[in-house]
């Protein structure tokens, strides 16, 4: 991609950030939505987050992890255990990252 094309691409990405984050907030009138869709939307925020992160955990270049020696799996397991033990997001991040670093640096995975 040439420099000006990349610049245009980045400007477009910024506009997409604004438009997606304000999709239902920006229009003057509320966008009409059937009742079933409103009800279904309750499940959507969680689903959208899960859809972004689960592939980051179990896929490597588009393939399902094929070895148990993947530090991500252990980092997620420990982070998850911490979350449901103490209900803290910080501890989830810190404990998971600690496991990640230990396995990467200590065991060289």
């Amino acid at each position, binding site marked *: 991609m040439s420099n000006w*094309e*990349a610049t245009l*691409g980045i400007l477009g990405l910024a506009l997409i950030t604004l438009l997606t984050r304000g999709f*239902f907030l920006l229009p003057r009138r509320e966008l009409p939505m059937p009742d079933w869709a409103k009800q279904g939307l309750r499940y959507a925020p969680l*689903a959208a987050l899960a*859809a972004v992160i689960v592939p980051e*955990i179990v896929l490597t270049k588009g393939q399902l992890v094929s070895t148990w020696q993947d530090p991500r799996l252990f980092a997620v397991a420990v982070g998850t255990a911490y979350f449901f033990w103490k209900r803290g997001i910080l501890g989830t991040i810190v404990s998971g990252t600690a496991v990640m670093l230990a396995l990467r640096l200590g065991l060289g995975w």
Partner: protein
Amino acid sequence: MLGITLGISAWGLVTGVAMVKSGLSLWLALLMSLIVFAGSSQLAALPLIAGGAPLWVLWATAFCVNLRFVIFSAQWRLYFGHLPRWQRLTLSYFAADLNYVAFMRRFPDPQAEPEAQQPYYWGGVALNWCAWQLPSIAGILLADRVPTEWGLGFAGVLALLGLTYSLLSSGKSWISAGVAGCAAVAAYALPLRLNIVVAIAAAVAIGLLLDHWKPDAAKPELRA
């Protein structure tokens, strides 16, 4: 909320490094960090820019990766929908994942209370912006000195994972999130990150079916 910014910062640092390592010039990387301000869409965009993908592919991919913000915005409207348009514009632009989850936990009742909510919102946004932009810029400037092989970027995934767990409430939400995760993996081969669209559709469909089979009697007001 303060604690979660640690994860955001580690993720920002790694994203800053990744932008330069993917071949973006220093100025383009700084421009991207400062105006795009959306980690997951930036990371999805980098290989496409490096590989010379058509612009519409780049933008469509970013839109799908950002779909969660579209959904969050429906809820932001309940709190900020009455504000003038320019305020809605600025509010929208800064509304990141962390701000959404923290705000909805702090103000679970969907009604506007401007005196309490706007300071809370802007404080959270300022914190999140600094926690993201400063490490990201540091990562851009120090790209050659930050070790990427340590897997620090995974702290960002762990931060989003914690945010996701904190949204899990009922058994039905567990099932629907599980379906979303499996569908996102199963459909990963689709172009343009359409796997995210598939996953949300599947999770909402399952959620509606579960509501139909087992309506929750305790919270009828949520069904409107």
